[in-house]
Protein backbone atom coordinates (compact mmCIF):
# COMPACT_ATOMS: atom_id res chain seq x y z
CA UNK A 1 0.00 0.00 0.00
CA UNK A 2 1.19 3.49 -0.79
CA UNK A 3 -0.50 6.33 1.06
CA UNK A 4 0.12 9.79 -0.41
CA UNK A 5 -0.95 12.65 1.82
CA UNK A 6 -1.08 16.39 1.05
CA UNK A 7 1.83 16.18 -1.36
CA UNK A 8 3.23 19.47 -2.65
CA UNK A 9 6.16 19.84 -5.01
CA UNK A 10 7.66 22.70 -6.91
CA UNK A 11 11.02 23.35 -8.51
CA UNK A 12 12.89 26.49 -7.65
CA UNK A 13 15.13 28.09 -10.13
CA UNK A 14 15.47 30.85 -12.66
CA UNK A 15 12.40 29.69 -14.58
CA UNK A 16 9.80 30.33 -11.92
CA UNK A 17 8.46 28.13 -9.23
CA UNK A 18 4.82 27.25 -9.73
CA UNK A 19 3.49 24.22 -7.92
CA UNK A 20 3.85 21.15 -10.10
CA UNK A 21 1.88 19.10 -7.60
CA UNK A 22 -0.53 20.85 -5.32
CA UNK A 23 -2.19 19.00 -2.45
CA UNK A 24 -2.10 15.54 -4.02
CA UNK A 25 -3.87 12.79 -2.07
CA UNK A 26 -4.47 9.16 -2.96
CA UNK A 27 -4.04 5.64 -1.70
CA UNK A 28 -2.77 2.85 -3.93
CA UNK A 29 -3.93 -0.49 -2.47
CA UNK A 30 -1.61 -3.49 -2.37
CA UNK A 31 -1.29 -5.28 -5.69
CA UNK A 32 -3.18 -2.76 -7.80
CA UNK A 33 -1.39 -1.53 -10.90
CA UNK A 34 -1.96 2.09 -11.70
CA UNK A 35 -1.63 4.05 -14.91
CA UNK A 36 -0.73 7.72 -14.60
CA UNK A 37 -2.17 9.93 -17.29
CA UNK A 38 -2.16 13.63 -17.97
CA UNK A 39 -0.88 16.02 -20.58
CA UNK A 40 2.83 16.81 -21.03
CA UNK A 41 4.18 18.73 -18.08
CA UNK A 42 1.31 17.76 -15.79
CA UNK A 43 3.77 16.37 -13.24
CA UNK A 44 3.66 12.66 -14.02
CA UNK A 45 7.41 12.14 -13.94
CA UNK A 46 7.68 14.35 -10.88
CA UNK A 47 5.15 12.20 -9.05
CA UNK A 48 7.01 9.04 -10.07
CA UNK A 49 10.28 10.48 -8.81
CA UNK A 50 8.67 11.31 -5.49
CA UNK A 51 7.18 7.83 -5.20
CA UNK A 52 10.58 6.30 -5.95
CA UNK A 53 12.14 8.53 -3.27
CA UNK A 54 14.50 10.03 -5.81
CA UNK A 55 13.31 13.46 -4.80
CA UNK A 56 11.74 14.90 -1.68
CA UNK A 57 8.37 16.65 -1.54
CA UNK A 58 8.17 20.26 -0.35
CA UNK A 59 5.21 19.42 1.85
CA UNK A 60 3.28 16.31 2.68
CA UNK A 61 4.40 12.72 2.93
CA UNK A 62 4.35 9.33 1.27
CA UNK A 63 3.72 6.48 3.69
CA UNK A 64 4.51 2.99 2.53
CA UNK A 65 5.95 -0.31 3.65
CA UNK A 66 6.36 -1.61 0.10
CA UNK A 67 9.67 -2.09 -1.59
CA UNK A 68 9.60 0.30 -4.50
CA UNK A 69 11.87 0.09 -7.53
CA UNK A 70 13.88 2.91 -9.02
CA UNK A 71 12.06 4.73 -11.86
CA UNK A 72 12.64 2.59 -14.92
CA UNK A 73 12.99 5.15 -17.63
CA UNK A 74 14.65 5.93 -20.89
CA UNK A 75 17.33 8.20 -19.55
CA UNK A 76 19.56 7.92 -16.55
CA UNK A 77 20.60 4.91 -14.57
CA UNK A 78 23.13 3.68 -17.09
CA UNK A 79 26.57 4.71 -18.21
CA UNK A 80 26.77 4.87 -22.00
CA UNK A 81 30.45 4.02 -22.25
CA UNK A 82 29.97 0.74 -20.41
CA UNK A 83 28.50 -2.45 -21.80
CA UNK A 84 25.06 -3.73 -20.89
CA UNK A 85 26.65 -6.46 -18.82
CA UNK A 86 28.78 -4.00 -16.82
CA UNK A 87 25.78 -1.82 -16.14
CA UNK A 88 23.76 -4.82 -14.98
CA UNK A 89 26.58 -5.82 -12.65
CA UNK A 90 26.70 -2.33 -11.17
CA UNK A 91 22.98 -2.20 -10.44
CA UNK A 92 23.03 -5.73 -9.03
CA UNK A 93 25.87 -4.77 -6.71
CA UNK A 94 24.22 -1.68 -5.27
CA UNK A 95 21.14 -3.77 -4.59
CA UNK A 96 23.22 -6.28 -2.68
CA UNK A 97 23.00 -8.98 -5.34
CA UNK A 98 26.69 -9.88 -5.46
CA UNK A 99 26.05 -13.45 -4.26
CA UNK A 100 23.49 -14.18 -6.98
CA UNK A 101 25.15 -12.14 -9.69
CA UNK A 102 25.17 -14.87 -12.36
CA UNK A 103 21.47 -15.53 -11.81
CA UNK A 104 20.65 -11.83 -12.29
CA UNK A 105 22.81 -11.51 -15.40
CA UNK A 106 21.25 -14.62 -16.94
CA UNK A 107 17.76 -13.37 -16.20
CA UNK A 108 18.38 -9.95 -17.74
CA UNK A 109 20.16 -11.39 -20.77
CA UNK A 110 17.27 -13.75 -21.31
CA UNK A 111 14.59 -11.11 -20.80
CA UNK A 112 16.23 -8.42 -22.91
CA UNK A 113 17.00 -10.72 -25.87
CA UNK A 114 19.45 -8.26 -27.38
CA UNK A 115 22.03 -10.90 -28.26
CA UNK A 116 25.63 -9.79 -28.74
CA UNK A 117 24.72 -6.17 -27.98
CA UNK A 118 24.69 -7.17 -24.31
CA UNK A 119 28.47 -6.93 -24.39
CA UNK A 120 28.65 -3.68 -26.32
CA UNK A 121 28.65 -0.13 -24.93
CA UNK A 122 25.17 1.04 -24.08
CA UNK A 123 25.56 4.24 -26.07
CA UNK A 124 25.23 2.10 -29.19
CA UNK A 125 21.78 0.85 -28.09
CA UNK A 126 18.52 1.96 -29.62
CA UNK A 127 15.89 3.23 -27.21
CA UNK A 128 14.01 -0.04 -27.59
CA UNK A 129 17.08 -2.08 -26.61
CA UNK A 130 17.69 0.19 -23.66
CA UNK A 131 14.18 -0.18 -22.38
CA UNK A 132 14.33 -3.97 -22.77
CA UNK A 133 17.47 -4.07 -20.67
CA UNK A 134 16.19 -1.58 -18.10
CA UNK A 135 12.89 -3.36 -17.66
CA UNK A 136 14.46 -6.80 -17.47
CA UNK A 137 16.97 -5.54 -14.95
CA UNK A 138 14.33 -4.20 -12.60
CA UNK A 139 12.37 -7.46 -12.87
CA UNK A 140 15.45 -9.37 -11.73
CA UNK A 141 14.80 -7.96 -8.26
CA UNK A 142 11.73 -8.69 -6.18
CA UNK A 143 10.14 -5.31 -5.69
CA UNK A 144 6.58 -4.90 -4.47
CA UNK A 145 6.00 -1.97 -6.75
CA UNK A 146 7.71 -1.29 -10.08
CA UNK A 147 7.82 2.26 -11.33
CA UNK A 148 8.00 2.75 -15.07
CA UNK A 149 8.39 6.11 -16.73
CA UNK A 150 7.60 5.48 -20.40
CA UNK A 151 9.98 2.53 -20.38
CA UNK A 152 7.48 0.37 -22.19
CA UNK A 153 6.48 2.98 -24.76
CA UNK A 154 9.29 2.25 -27.20
CA UNK A 155 9.15 -1.54 -27.01
CA UNK A 156 7.90 -3.65 -29.88
CA UNK A 157 4.96 -6.06 -29.68
CA UNK A 158 7.07 -8.99 -28.50
CA UNK A 159 8.52 -6.95 -25.67
CA UNK A 160 5.10 -5.67 -24.58
CA UNK A 161 3.84 -9.24 -24.54
CA UNK A 162 6.78 -10.25 -22.39
CA UNK A 163 6.27 -7.40 -19.94
CA UNK A 164 2.60 -8.26 -19.70
CA UNK A 165 3.38 -11.88 -18.96
CA UNK A 166 5.97 -10.94 -16.33
CA UNK A 167 3.40 -8.94 -14.42
CA UNK A 168 0.68 -11.52 -14.91
CA UNK A 169 3.03 -14.02 -13.22
CA UNK A 170 3.46 -11.66 -10.34
CA UNK A 171 -0.17 -10.82 -9.74
CA UNK A 172 -0.82 -10.52 -6.03
CA UNK A 173 2.88 -10.13 -5.35
CA UNK A 174 3.89 -7.03 -7.25
CA UNK A 175 2.23 -4.18 -9.00
CA UNK A 176 3.18 -1.44 -11.39
CA UNK A 177 2.86 2.31 -11.44
CA UNK A 178 3.42 3.53 -14.93
CA UNK A 179 3.34 6.56 -17.15
CA UNK A 180 2.61 6.02 -20.79
CA UNK A 181 0.96 7.90 -23.60
CA UNK A 182 -0.01 4.69 -25.33
CA UNK A 183 -3.43 3.73 -24.04
CA UNK A 184 -3.03 0.13 -25.21
CA UNK A 185 -0.19 -0.77 -22.88
CA UNK A 186 -1.88 0.94 -19.96
CA UNK A 187 -5.05 -1.07 -20.52
CA UNK A 188 -2.99 -4.24 -20.77
CA UNK A 189 -1.08 -3.78 -17.55
CA UNK A 190 -3.07 -1.51 -15.22
CA UNK A 191 -6.39 -1.71 -13.43
CA UNK A 192 -6.74 1.69 -11.78
CA UNK A 193 -5.87 5.13 -13.04
CA UNK A 194 -4.69 8.49 -11.76
CA UNK A 195 -5.41 11.57 -13.84
CA UNK A 196 -3.03 14.45 -13.15
CA UNK A 197 -4.72 17.72 -13.96
CA UNK A 198 -3.66 21.24 -12.95
CA UNK A 199 -1.55 20.04 -10.07
CA UNK A 200 -4.27 17.78 -8.71
CA UNK A 201 -4.41 14.00 -8.82
CA UNK A 202 -7.79 12.39 -9.38
CA UNK A 203 -8.09 8.72 -8.55
CA UNK A 204 -10.20 6.34 -10.64
CA UNK A 205 -10.84 2.76 -9.61
CA UNK A 206 -11.19 1.88 -13.28
CA UNK A 207 -8.48 2.91 -15.70
CA UNK A 208 -11.02 3.40 -18.49
CA UNK A 209 -12.80 6.08 -16.48
CA UNK A 210 -9.53 7.97 -16.05
CA UNK A 211 -8.80 7.75 -19.76
CA UNK A 212 -12.33 8.96 -20.54
CA UNK A 213 -11.96 11.93 -18.20
CA UNK A 214 -8.59 12.80 -19.71
CA UNK A 215 -9.90 12.56 -23.26
CA UNK A 216 -12.86 14.72 -22.38
CA UNK A 217 -10.61 17.44 -20.97
CA UNK A 218 -8.46 17.52 -24.10
CA UNK A 219 -11.44 17.67 -26.44
CA UNK A 220 -12.97 20.76 -24.93
Amino acid at each position, binding site marked *: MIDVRNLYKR*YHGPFGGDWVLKDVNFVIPQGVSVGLIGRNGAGKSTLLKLL*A*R*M*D*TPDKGEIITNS*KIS*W*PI*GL*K*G*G*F*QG*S*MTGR*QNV*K*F*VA*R*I*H*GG*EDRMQQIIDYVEDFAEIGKAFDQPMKTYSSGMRSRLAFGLSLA*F*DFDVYISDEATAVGDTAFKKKAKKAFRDRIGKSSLIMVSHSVGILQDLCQAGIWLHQGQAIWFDQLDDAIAAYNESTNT
Partner: protein
Amino acid sequence: MKERSSLQVTLHVWYALFMREAMARMSGDRFGWTWMLLEPVAHIMLMIAVREFMGRIRFIPGADFIPYLIVGLMGFFIFRDAATRSMSAINANSGLFAYRQLHPVDTVIVRAALEGVLKTIVFMLLVVGAVFIGLNIVPMDPLRVIIAWLTLWLLGLGFGLVFSIAVTLVQESEKIIRMMMFPLYFLSGVIIPVQLMPHSVQQVLIYNPILHALESMRYGFFPAYRSIHGIELMYPMALSLGMILLGLMLQVRLKTKLMAQ
Protein backbone atom coordinates in the same frame (compact mmCIF):
# COMPACT_ATOMS: atom_id res chain seq x y z
CA MET B 1 15.50 -9.51 -1.28
CA LYS B 2 17.10 -9.57 2.13
CA GLU B 3 16.77 -6.57 4.40
CA ARG B 4 20.08 -4.76 4.59
CA SER B 5 21.29 -2.36 7.24
CA SER B 6 22.20 1.19 6.19
CA LEU B 7 25.86 0.38 6.64
CA GLN B 8 25.59 -2.69 4.42
CA VAL B 9 23.79 -0.69 1.74
CA THR B 10 26.52 1.96 1.81
CA LEU B 11 29.26 -0.65 1.61
CA HIS B 12 27.54 -2.32 -1.34
CA VAL B 13 27.23 1.05 -3.08
CA TRP B 14 30.88 1.87 -2.46
CA TYR B 15 31.99 -1.51 -3.75
CA ALA B 16 29.84 -1.20 -6.88
CA LEU B 17 31.05 2.34 -7.56
CA PHE B 18 34.65 1.40 -6.91
CA MET B 19 34.57 -1.48 -9.39
CA ARG B 20 32.89 0.72 -11.96
CA GLU B 21 35.31 3.64 -11.55
CA ALA B 22 38.29 1.28 -11.60
CA MET B 23 37.01 -0.31 -14.83
CA ALA B 24 36.53 3.11 -16.38
CA ARG B 25 40.03 4.24 -15.41
CA MET B 26 41.76 1.09 -16.67
CA SER B 27 39.92 0.84 -19.96
CA GLY B 28 39.21 4.54 -20.43
CA ASP B 29 41.98 5.33 -22.85
CA ARG B 30 44.53 3.31 -24.76
CA PHE B 31 47.30 3.94 -22.23
CA GLY B 32 45.29 2.94 -19.17
CA TRP B 33 47.65 1.42 -16.65
CA THR B 34 50.91 2.39 -18.33
CA TRP B 35 50.12 6.08 -18.25
CA MET B 36 49.53 6.02 -14.51
CA LEU B 37 53.14 4.93 -13.97
CA LEU B 38 54.59 6.77 -16.92
CA GLU B 39 53.24 10.19 -16.03
CA PRO B 40 55.13 10.66 -12.73
CA VAL B 41 58.28 9.10 -14.24
CA ALA B 42 58.13 11.52 -17.17
CA HIS B 43 57.52 14.36 -14.77
CA ILE B 44 60.54 13.44 -12.65
CA MET B 45 62.76 13.04 -15.72
CA LEU B 46 61.67 16.44 -16.99
CA MET B 47 62.42 18.14 -13.68
CA ILE B 48 65.85 16.50 -13.48
CA ALA B 49 66.58 17.70 -17.02
CA VAL B 50 65.46 21.22 -16.21
CA ARG B 51 67.70 21.24 -13.17
CA GLU B 52 70.71 19.97 -15.13
CA PHE B 53 70.29 22.51 -17.91
CA MET B 54 69.89 25.37 -15.48
CA GLY B 55 73.21 24.26 -14.08
CA ARG B 56 72.37 25.39 -10.61
CA ILE B 57 72.77 22.21 -8.64
CA ARG B 58 71.96 23.41 -5.20
CA PHE B 59 72.49 21.48 -2.07
CA ILE B 60 69.45 20.19 -0.21
CA PRO B 61 70.34 19.63 3.44
CA GLY B 62 70.21 15.92 4.22
CA ALA B 63 68.68 14.50 1.03
CA ASP B 64 69.68 13.66 -2.53
CA PHE B 65 67.84 15.63 -5.18
CA ILE B 66 66.11 12.79 -7.07
CA PRO B 67 64.71 11.02 -3.96
CA TYR B 68 63.69 14.44 -2.65
CA LEU B 69 61.87 15.10 -5.91
CA ILE B 70 60.13 11.69 -6.06
CA VAL B 71 58.75 12.06 -2.54
CA GLY B 72 57.60 15.64 -3.12
CA LEU B 73 55.99 14.99 -6.49
CA MET B 74 54.10 11.87 -5.48
CA GLY B 75 52.99 13.46 -2.22
CA PHE B 76 51.69 16.47 -4.08
CA PHE B 77 50.04 14.34 -6.77
CA ILE B 78 48.05 12.23 -4.32
CA PHE B 79 46.62 15.39 -2.80
CA ARG B 80 45.99 17.11 -6.12
CA ASP B 81 44.50 14.15 -7.95
CA ALA B 82 42.36 12.99 -5.04
CA ALA B 83 40.92 16.51 -4.81
CA THR B 84 40.46 17.26 -8.52
CA ARG B 85 39.20 13.84 -9.58
CA SER B 86 36.69 13.58 -6.76
CA MET B 87 35.39 17.12 -7.20
CA SER B 88 33.96 16.29 -10.64
CA ALA B 89 32.48 12.97 -9.50
CA ILE B 90 28.95 14.24 -8.89
CA ASN B 91 28.51 15.68 -12.38
CA ALA B 92 30.04 12.63 -13.99
CA ASN B 93 27.69 10.25 -12.19
CA SER B 94 24.50 12.31 -12.20
CA GLY B 95 22.74 9.61 -14.23
CA LEU B 96 23.08 7.19 -11.35
CA PHE B 97 21.03 9.14 -8.84
CA ALA B 98 18.01 7.25 -10.17
CA TYR B 99 19.05 4.65 -7.60
CA ARG B 100 18.07 6.09 -4.27
CA GLN B 101 20.64 4.14 -2.26
CA LEU B 102 23.35 6.12 -4.03
CA HIS B 103 24.05 9.57 -2.62
CA PRO B 104 26.16 12.24 -4.32
CA VAL B 105 28.73 12.03 -1.53
CA ASP B 106 29.34 8.34 -2.29
CA THR B 107 30.66 9.15 -5.75
CA VAL B 108 33.09 11.71 -4.29
CA ILE B 109 34.41 9.40 -1.58
CA VAL B 110 34.84 6.46 -3.95
CA ARG B 111 36.75 8.51 -6.52
CA ALA B 112 39.09 9.79 -3.83
CA ALA B 113 39.55 6.25 -2.54
CA LEU B 114 40.35 4.88 -6.01
CA GLU B 115 42.86 7.68 -6.55
CA GLY B 116 44.44 6.89 -3.19
CA VAL B 117 44.80 3.20 -4.03
CA LEU B 118 46.26 3.86 -7.49
CA LYS B 119 48.71 6.52 -6.29
CA THR B 120 49.84 4.30 -3.42
CA ILE B 121 50.63 1.47 -5.83
CA VAL B 122 52.47 3.82 -8.18
CA PHE B 123 54.43 5.38 -5.31
CA MET B 124 55.52 2.00 -3.99
CA LEU B 125 56.60 0.90 -7.47
CA LEU B 126 58.57 4.13 -7.93
CA VAL B 127 60.32 3.81 -4.58
CA VAL B 128 61.21 0.16 -5.18
CA GLY B 129 62.37 1.03 -8.69
CA ALA B 130 64.50 3.90 -7.42
CA VAL B 131 66.09 1.68 -4.78
CA PHE B 132 66.95 -0.84 -7.51
CA ILE B 133 68.80 1.75 -9.57
CA GLY B 134 70.80 2.68 -6.49
CA LEU B 135 69.09 5.80 -5.21
CA ASN B 136 69.05 6.52 -1.53
CA ILE B 137 65.31 6.42 -0.94
CA VAL B 138 64.71 3.65 1.63
CA PRO B 139 62.40 5.17 4.25
CA MET B 140 64.09 5.29 7.65
CA ASP B 141 60.85 5.88 9.52
CA PRO B 142 58.16 4.09 7.48
CA LEU B 143 55.37 4.81 9.97
CA ARG B 144 55.95 8.53 9.66
CA VAL B 145 55.89 8.24 5.88
CA ILE B 146 52.61 6.31 5.97
CA ILE B 147 50.98 8.82 8.29
CA ALA B 148 52.10 11.78 6.18
CA TRP B 149 50.96 10.00 3.01
CA LEU B 150 47.54 9.30 4.54
CA THR B 151 47.30 12.90 5.68
CA LEU B 152 47.88 14.11 2.14
CA TRP B 153 45.15 11.78 0.91
CA LEU B 154 42.77 12.93 3.63
CA LEU B 155 43.50 16.54 2.66
CA GLY B 156 42.65 15.67 -0.92
CA LEU B 157 39.43 13.98 0.20
CA GLY B 158 38.48 16.94 2.39
CA PHE B 159 39.08 19.49 -0.33
CA GLY B 160 37.41 17.19 -2.86
CA LEU B 161 34.26 17.00 -0.71
CA VAL B 162 34.08 20.78 -0.40
CA PHE B 163 35.13 21.52 -4.00
CA SER B 164 32.60 19.02 -5.35
CA ILE B 165 29.82 21.21 -3.97
CA ALA B 166 31.22 24.30 -5.65
CA VAL B 167 31.90 22.52 -8.94
CA THR B 168 28.46 20.91 -9.07
CA LEU B 169 26.50 24.02 -8.19
CA VAL B 170 28.67 26.54 -10.08
CA GLN B 171 30.29 24.78 -13.04
CA GLU B 172 32.75 27.60 -13.77
CA SER B 173 34.51 27.17 -10.45
CA GLU B 174 36.13 23.96 -11.72
CA LYS B 175 38.40 25.97 -14.04
CA ILE B 176 39.48 28.29 -11.23
CA ILE B 177 40.22 25.43 -8.84
CA ARG B 178 42.25 23.57 -11.46
CA MET B 179 44.19 26.74 -12.19
CA MET B 180 44.93 27.27 -8.49
CA MET B 181 46.63 23.88 -8.35
CA PHE B 182 49.47 25.14 -10.55
CA PRO B 183 50.85 27.89 -8.28
CA LEU B 184 50.22 25.58 -5.33
CA TYR B 185 52.68 23.16 -6.94
CA PHE B 186 55.47 25.71 -6.63
CA LEU B 187 54.44 26.94 -3.19
CA SER B 188 54.43 23.51 -1.56
CA GLY B 189 58.13 22.78 -1.77
CA VAL B 190 57.65 20.07 -4.40
CA ILE B 191 60.59 20.98 -6.64
CA ILE B 192 61.93 24.21 -5.18
CA PRO B 193 63.31 23.43 -1.71
CA VAL B 194 61.64 25.66 0.82
CA GLN B 195 64.92 25.92 2.76
CA LEU B 196 66.45 27.93 -0.07
CA MET B 197 63.74 30.57 -0.07
CA PRO B 198 64.09 33.91 1.70
CA HIS B 199 62.92 33.97 5.28
CA SER B 200 60.09 36.42 4.52
CA VAL B 201 58.68 34.00 1.92
CA GLN B 202 59.02 31.06 4.29
CA GLN B 203 56.96 32.94 6.85
CA VAL B 204 54.08 33.00 4.35
CA LEU B 205 54.53 29.48 3.00
CA ILE B 206 54.31 28.07 6.50
CA TYR B 207 50.54 28.53 6.23
CA ASN B 208 50.43 26.00 3.38
CA PRO B 209 49.29 22.67 4.87
CA ILE B 210 50.66 20.62 1.96
CA LEU B 211 54.15 21.94 2.66
CA HIS B 212 53.93 20.60 6.22
CA ALA B 213 52.81 17.16 5.05
CA LEU B 214 55.47 16.93 2.33
CA GLU B 215 58.29 17.99 4.63
CA SER B 216 57.08 15.55 7.30
CA MET B 217 57.14 12.76 4.76
CA ARG B 218 60.71 13.70 3.80
CA TYR B 219 61.71 13.58 7.46
CA GLY B 220 60.37 10.01 7.45
CA PHE B 221 62.49 9.13 4.42
CA PHE B 222 65.76 10.91 5.10
CA PRO B 223 67.07 10.85 8.69
CA ALA B 224 69.54 13.68 8.10
CA TYR B 225 67.02 15.91 6.38
CA ARG B 226 66.71 19.46 7.68
CA SER B 227 63.71 21.54 6.73
CA ILE B 228 62.68 24.96 7.96
CA HIS B 229 61.68 25.54 11.52
CA GLY B 230 58.03 24.98 12.45
CA ILE B 231 57.08 21.92 10.35
CA GLU B 232 54.20 20.26 12.13
CA LEU B 233 52.21 17.30 10.74
CA MET B 234 49.41 18.02 13.20
CA TYR B 235 48.42 21.11 11.21
CA PRO B 236 47.48 19.37 7.90
CA MET B 237 45.92 16.52 9.88
CA ALA B 238 43.62 18.82 11.81
CA LEU B 239 42.83 20.81 8.69
CA SER B 240 41.98 17.67 6.72
CA LEU B 241 39.60 16.47 9.42
CA GLY B 242 38.02 19.92 9.54
CA MET B 243 37.59 19.99 5.76
CA ILE B 244 36.12 16.47 5.71
CA LEU B 245 33.62 17.44 8.40
CA LEU B 246 32.70 20.65 6.58
CA GLY B 247 32.41 18.77 3.30
CA LEU B 248 30.19 16.06 4.77
CA MET B 249 27.96 18.64 6.44
CA LEU B 250 27.54 20.54 3.17
CA GLN B 251 26.87 17.28 1.34
CA VAL B 252 24.06 16.43 3.75
CA ARG B 253 22.61 19.93 3.68
CA LEU B 254 22.71 20.36 -0.10
CA LYS B 255 21.99 16.78 -1.16
CA THR B 256 18.78 17.49 -3.11
CA LYS B 257 20.37 20.46 -4.88
CA LEU B 258 23.38 18.38 -5.86
CA MET B 259 21.15 15.64 -7.24
CA ALA B 260 19.01 18.07 -9.22
CA GLN B 261 21.95 19.47 -11.19
